[in-house]
């Protein structure tokens, strides 16, 4: 097998040293079988440039840490095999999120803020009784909740979204999907009116232009298009009929 030599162009900027303006730096790496961008970037850091900043945690497409623009498209770097890419690869940090340095961005703070704003927890007036057995739930319902809960907060949908790129308060597909997760959960006692107060605005459902870049970019293959339509329908009804 002929081994390719990869040319990897990487965005460099460290907000700690603002005098050095952003620039692109080029590295070359010998491709090995089954190389992912996780392997390629670590090889660069260990053998060529130990100052290079990027984030990996699980390296298994589970934790959502490593999203970046790979040849212009938001991707999980750990899940991207170099053999699926041309030999010239251009890596940029995700837009929308605050830059920490080079390819590392602060998705964590953004999502914590989102979770606070959408109050992404079960709202109930019950208290837990340690002596009682669990409340029953239909398995179908459990699976439906889990389906929406599969979001790994990677930010790919947000980075590729036109609205999010111009409105920094837009909740994005990830935010609306979160609302959908709690809407289908019978344990959450919020009414549609309560949800409407959070997302019935241009920051929420009505900011979405429906171009579905989010749906294409989600590495978890969440049915974002469907979820957005579901939330929009419920919210439109609430807007008109006041959630009755």
């Amino acid at each position, binding site marked *: 097998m002929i081994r390719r030599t990869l040319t990897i162009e990487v965005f460099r900027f460290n907000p700690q040293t603002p005098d050095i303006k952003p620039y692109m730096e080029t590295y070359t790496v010998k491709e090995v079988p089954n190389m992912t961008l996780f392997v390629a970037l670590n090889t660069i850091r260990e053998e060529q440039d130990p100052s290079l900043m990027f984030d990996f945690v699980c390296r298994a497409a589970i934790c959502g840490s490593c999203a970046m623009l790979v040849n212009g498209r938001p991707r999980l770097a750990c899940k991207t095999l170099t053999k699926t890419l041309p030999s010239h690869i251009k890596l940029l940090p995700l837009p929308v999120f605050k830059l920490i340095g080079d390819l590392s961005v602060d998705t964590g703070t953004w999502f914590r803020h989102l979770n606070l704003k959408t109050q992404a927890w079960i709202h109930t007036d019950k208290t*837990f009784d340690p002596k009682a057995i669990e409340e029953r739930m239909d398995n179908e319902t459990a699976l439906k909740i889990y389906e929406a809960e599969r979001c790994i907060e990677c930010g790919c949908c947000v980075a590729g979204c036109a609205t999010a790129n111009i409105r920094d308060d837009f909740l994005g597909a990830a935010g609306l999907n979160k609302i959908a997760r709690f809407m289908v959960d019978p344990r959450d006692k919020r009414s549609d009116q309560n949800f409407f107060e959070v997302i019935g605005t241009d920051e929420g459902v009505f900011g979405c232009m429906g171009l579905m870049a989010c749906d294409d970019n989600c590495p978890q293959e969440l049915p974002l298009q469907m979820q957005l339509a579901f939330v929009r329908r419920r919210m439109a009804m609430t807007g008109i009929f006041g959630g009755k």
Partner: protein
Amino acid sequence: MSLFNIHLTDVLVIGAGLAGERAAVEAASFGCDVTILSLVPPRRSHSTAAQGGMQASLGNCAKGLGDNPDIHFEDTVKGSDWGCEQDVARLFVNVAPIAIRQLAFWGVPWNRVVAGKRKLPDGSIIEELKEKEGLITARAFGGTAKWRTCYTSDGTGHSVQYTMDSIVVKLGVTVHDRIEAMALIHDGERCYGAVARDLRTGELRAYVSKATVIATGGYGRIYGISTNAVINEGTGMAIAQDTGVVPLGNMEAVQFHPTGLFPVWILITEGARGDGGYLLDKNEHRFMPDYEPVKKELASRDVVSRCMIQHMRKGFGVETDMGTHLWLDIRHLGAKHIHTNLREIDNICKNFAGIDPVKELIPVRPTQHYSMGGIRTNIDGHAYGLKGLFAAGEASCWDLHGFNRLGGNSLAETIVMGLIVGEKVAEYTEGTEFVLPQRLVQDHMKKQQERIDKLIKASNNGENVYELRRKMEETLMEKVGIFRNGKDLEEAVHTLQDLLKRSQNISLRSSGKGANPELASALRLPGMIRLALSIAYGALMRTESRGSHAREDYPQRDDVNWLKRTLATWPEGNELPELSYEPVTITELPPGDRGYGEASQSGKSKE
């Protein structure tokens, strides 16, 4: 020292995985002011990677009917090869069902019982009861007499972590992410918090607290070849040991999994072999029957891992630029079976190896998986050696797992122990005065600043951090791996001692300024090597085989001399840990036969 970089809190929790967040929520619910530190945003912690599930004896599903804490207790103690604390195991099995139900109350979408008849992969038919419909169901896991492992499809850790974090957000608990604890502030008797480094800016801060909880997870990555997340470098254990007074328990107890996907070491579940997959060598010869004619690929995890290593040592591994591996072959199971029953494996192979397992062989190798050892605590989670220091989760040695933990018991441990430790911490802080020992804080800050300055200033002809690290990883993998013997272990101890010395002379090739990743690695390395030495030296001294600790030269379990726990402290300036031993608490189940696993007989395999 300016006061701007001191943060005061009742309870400092280091680590935002399941154990840390559960402890934080409990302490906060008792009214404590809690601050959590984490290397990464909480929802990126390694706990999210656990897919299988967590054990609690609810007894709702057909194959779990009649289950109860007593049976769970027995499974746990046998699994541990009698190395666990039985009072701890008893407490754990009793609390686990409550802890699971509380998670359901908070929002975890556990899979539920669906009434009716169902056919299992082996062809047998079971019937789920109508009266149990809608209650939390469970799946099978190795080493359990009943189906007891509760789960949410293929993402249990993810769901539980997201739910725990939603409670953390709801309660408004302070979380500082991208912060790394580097040292504990202590005076040899009491712990006053930690010195930490901001991984965004590189700056140091002091966190001063009444009580400190270490919940930093496992150290898998000191073994290079590990299923663990890349941030699992054991720094929490290392900073505890670094105090010179806190012992680590049973560090030689390390669990391996036979099939990590080469060369990214992502876990390929046992389902692959359970359903009939073969292991092949470089000649595509199925070698397991040569070693284990009866059980073949289905021998216990430890046994299969040992055979694989031995076969590779003999030169039958597939050599590549990135190391040596063997093959897992599931092609003969057919496309239909692989696409339905083994879908998760199919996805992992496609995404991370670009392999279609219907047509191609899967490269695998035994891979480090779990650390049973850790910061030794009492049953309340209070660490030995320092007042005000607690530990929880994989970073601790509570000691629920002894020499082998059961699948599904570690997630459950994070939640159960987190709950218990959170309450005990609240009790402790209630009765403790807040003290700000200015001088002590200053000294500890200064010491860490000096380490950083020394590294930044070092001439550039010193040691390369990545080279030393790789050497440590290789040494552990080759000599302190699945198979152990006196000669290899001695060599490992020497090599690691040499590496420890050399790690004092690292020089950086980058500037080391700000959030520099090379500096971060250089700061961690000496502590990691000390952990490696604690494992290697503990394994060298333990002249028996028990659970995951398999000595080729001492293949039998030896209850007369070794029914005890290793404690490894590291007094300042020492070249080796100081080992002492304590008895194992046995309250209910005297040592006996595990009834499975060949740990005590397969040490010497046929050629």
